[in-house]
């Protein structure tokens, strides 16, 4: 291992947010050419730490010291951090969707010609294409970011940071949206960068990846660094124990199920986008009460599109029927009708489709089910605030949302707690069928297990769950049956016993796909 001088180090960092201590003493150091993973649960302080290192929380708002090459530094904005050679790729991507890949990569640092008067677009596109091919990304430099799936956007963001020739790359949950195949590509890229002497801070909840890539691991718990370990001298179980401060027996606690009547039935469904591009064709499947139906596939296979269409939020139906509880859902039903009928969707993109970020937890939790706590005629009745608060508080407690109270603004919560708010909102509608799209994306082990336990609880109450996941172990661990999609249709159906990683992957790749076709919606 490299034992040279640290390129970046943090000493006893303390950061407070209006009375709440987010960091209470975090120290760690990063050496050139090492991959240093930071692990910790929701709210352990990971995001705060990297925002501090990236200049988002400016110098003076925290205690402690940050050093680059041994010298104390003060970052007042992200530009300062970039100038020091530190690039941070946040979970919330910072791409301009209306611009092309190349325009995004060179945003603000466009190559010039004619004595600096004009942007040298041919060079920008050439360099972007070179950069992309260097990282084996089969994305055209002139594709609009809007047309790329979220996973590809992540890769573009990484390419963008690398284009700035950074010495330190901080990646916050870089693989949260990626399929296993893409994760392998990314890990290869990271190994390549390490070989070139770039130091990498790698934040991930996926311990398999952490152990595949990291040289050292720092564990945060409740805002403090509790251990810095060499990856070769520790184990997954050890890290999990240090993260949660207790033992975790079983990662996938799926209980045996007793499927009942068919609640959701889809027959010969074909759907196209508003622009008349085919999204799904000839999909037939049933979901029974008390059952978890897993849906897998590569990015762009149509998993999210299927859930969104069934929920009434996406696409035009060109053929087929969707039946909920024996009664058809019309081709043009709206999400509000779906919710009335007992069908809810928890979206993979919770900030876009799940939350009103500058409102309180209570406001968000109630949004789907206000009529239930309203006296009087529908939307014009008077909300019974005490009844509403009591109901929300019950869910707030049972989901163990970590926040001071229902009045807390959702935007400031960690990813896992935001996800709990979205789930709480759905549960308050008392659904019969719950559509879960990547419910554990970007949340930590402890919160993941809470989501799994919740799935068990839902099915035990006779509700049906449809679970879309990119993580095969999760899909196999939590589903009673698994359907694999590829290019908009079903390429395999497996019982829990039949399913193996090889069989699922074979079905997911049943049609030979290129990433470009799958990535562009």
């Amino acid at each position, binding site marked *: 291992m490299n034992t040279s001088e640290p390129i970046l180090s943090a000493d006893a960092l303390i950061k407070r947010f*209006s*009375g*709440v*201590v987010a960091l209470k003493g975090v120290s760690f150091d990063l050496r050139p050419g090492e991959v240093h993973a930071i692990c910790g649960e929701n*709210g352990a302080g990971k995001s705060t730490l990297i925002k501090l290192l990236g200049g988002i929380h400016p110098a003076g708002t925290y205690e402690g010291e940050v050093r680059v090459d041994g010298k104390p530094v003060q970052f007042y904005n992200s530009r300062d951090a970039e100038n020091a050679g530190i690039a941070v790729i946040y979970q919330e991507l910072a791409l301009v969707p209306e611009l092309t890949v190349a325009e995004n990569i060179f945003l603000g640092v466009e190559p010039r010609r004619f004595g600096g008067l004009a942007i040298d677009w041919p060079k920008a596109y050439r360099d972007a294409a070179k950069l992309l091919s260097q990282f084996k990304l089969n994305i055209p430099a002139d594709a609009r970011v809007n047309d790329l799936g979220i996973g590809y956007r992540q890769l573009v963001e990484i390419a963008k940071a690398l284009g700035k020739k950074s010495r330190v790359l901080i990646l916050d949950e870089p693989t949260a949206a990626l399929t296993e195949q893409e994760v392998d590509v990314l890990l290869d890229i990271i190994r390549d960068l390490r070989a070139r002497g770039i130091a990498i801070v790698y934040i991930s909840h996926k311990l398999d990846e952490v152990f595949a890539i990291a040289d050292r691991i720092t564990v945060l718990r*409740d*805002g403090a660094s509790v251990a810095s370990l060499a990856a070769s001298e520790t184990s997954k179980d050890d890290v999990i124990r240090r993260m949660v401060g207790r033992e975790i027996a079983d990662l996938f606690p799926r209980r045996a199920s007793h499927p009942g009547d068919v609640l959701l039935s889809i027959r010969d469904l074909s759907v196209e986008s508003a622009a008349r591009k085919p999204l799904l064709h000839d999909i037939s499947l049933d979901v029974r009460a008390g059952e978890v139906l897993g849906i897998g596939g590569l990015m762009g296979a149509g998993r999210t599109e299927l859930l969104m269409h069934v*929920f009434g*939020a996406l696409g035009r139906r060109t053929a087929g029927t969707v039946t909920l509880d024996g009664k058809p859902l019309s081709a043009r039903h*709206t*999400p*509000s009708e*779906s*919710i*009335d009928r007992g069908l809810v*969707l928890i*979206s993979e993109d919770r900030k*876009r*489709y*799940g*939350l*009103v*970020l*500058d*409102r*309180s937890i*209570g*406001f968000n939790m*109630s*949004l*789907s089910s*206000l*009529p239930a706590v*309203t006296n009087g005629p*529908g*939307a*014009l*009745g*008077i*909300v019974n*605030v*005490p*009844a*509403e*608060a*009591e109901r*929300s*508080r019950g869910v707030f407690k049972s989901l163990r949302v*970590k926040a*001071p*109270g*229902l*009045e807390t603004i959702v935007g400031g919560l960690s990813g896992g707690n935001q996800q709990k708010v979205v789930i709480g*909102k759905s549960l308050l*509608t008392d659904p019969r069928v719950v559509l879960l799209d990547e419910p554990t994306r970007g949340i930590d082990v402890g919160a993941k297990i809470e989501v799994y336990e919740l799935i068990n609880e839902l099915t035990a109450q006779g509700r049906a769950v449809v679970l879309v996941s990119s993580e095969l172990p999760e899909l196999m661990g939590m589903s009673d049956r698994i359907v694999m999609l590829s290019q908009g249709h079903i390429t395999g159906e497996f019982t829990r016993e039949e399913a193996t990683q090889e069989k699922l992957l074979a079905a997911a790749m049943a049609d030979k796909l290129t990433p470009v076709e799958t990535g562009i919606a």
Partner: protein
Amino acid sequence: MSVVATKPIVSTEGAPRGLDARVIIMPCVLLLLGAYFGWSEPAFFGARNLSNLAIELSLTAVLALGMLLIILPGHIDLSVGSGAGLLGGAAAVLIFKLGWPAPAALAVVTLAALVLWLAMGTLIVTQRVPAFIVTLGGLLIFRGLHWYVINNGTIPVVRGGETNLFSLLTTYNLPPLAGLLLAGVVIAVMAIAAFASFKRLRGAGVAVDGELSFLRTFVTAQVILLFVLSCNAYQGVPIAAVILGVVATFVQVLTRDTPYGRYLYAIGGNEEAAVVSGVPVTRVVIAAFGMIGLVTALTGFLQTAYAGASTTTVGTNLELDAIAACVIGGTSLKGGRGTVGGVLMGALIVTALINGMTLLSYGPEAKNIIRGAILAAAVWADVRFGKR
């Protein structure tokens, strides 16, 4: 986390109730304005001018409250000024030229306004044409129609020497005793409602600040009483002020206490999330446009009655005053933020400014420059000092 603020946070699940800088700044601005105008021209605080001010406030505030319902879900309506001119003019023509009874004319025009604005709302929501464009088109079309309808002339709201429902809108005043009685009833209802709500919330364990809620009720009661007493010193409470009271109460309850109000805030905060949460976005926004249509008709009647007749200039730039009142009152043009109290305060600032400058015989040049500067300063102050 063990270190958690122990002070109860003043807020419930509805519109935010927390105090922020704006709550302090706006009354200060108002006091400064009052002090300056009162010192320069003592008649500013004379009973007669206060009564005029009350009517002018009512005209501006009613429209601004309607505008709030459009801005909250992130839209805008530029057509309300010329629309008010058209609707007031149409009613005047029906009465003066065609001899219709005033109530029938007002009712028919109100209905027409509802239909027009529902149509614009439908165009905006279902066809996804930006509200800015649709209502900009409306602004020009309505202005043209207005001038066409009144034939570029002057159409009085009532035939010579008579009075009717239309003309009384801005000339009738409640008898002093009736004004006092009304104020007493309103204050009593308000106090009882505030206390009951406080008890219910406290009983349910919702964090509420009793002192703040008492203070709010107490101050509002004082303002109402003072207002009635000063109006009674002249000719009594103008009926326009009573109309404003009714509209403000309605919008307050709508935005604060109903699911519909929550939906407005949710759509403005994150429309896609609102759709996926089952909020009937299409219906909610179209209904908001329907409501501003009704409010525009009401404003048209009030404005035309205040002018005494429909002329080509009635309604001009009213949309800007309404938007300015909203923005000065802390409403975010991006949607999702704004309160009735703020809009009323904003409308009062806008109105007092115009009234005072008129009283001090400022020229139209200075008036325009000062109004523009105040609007820009208000938004700057909001961005700079407002809580995010």
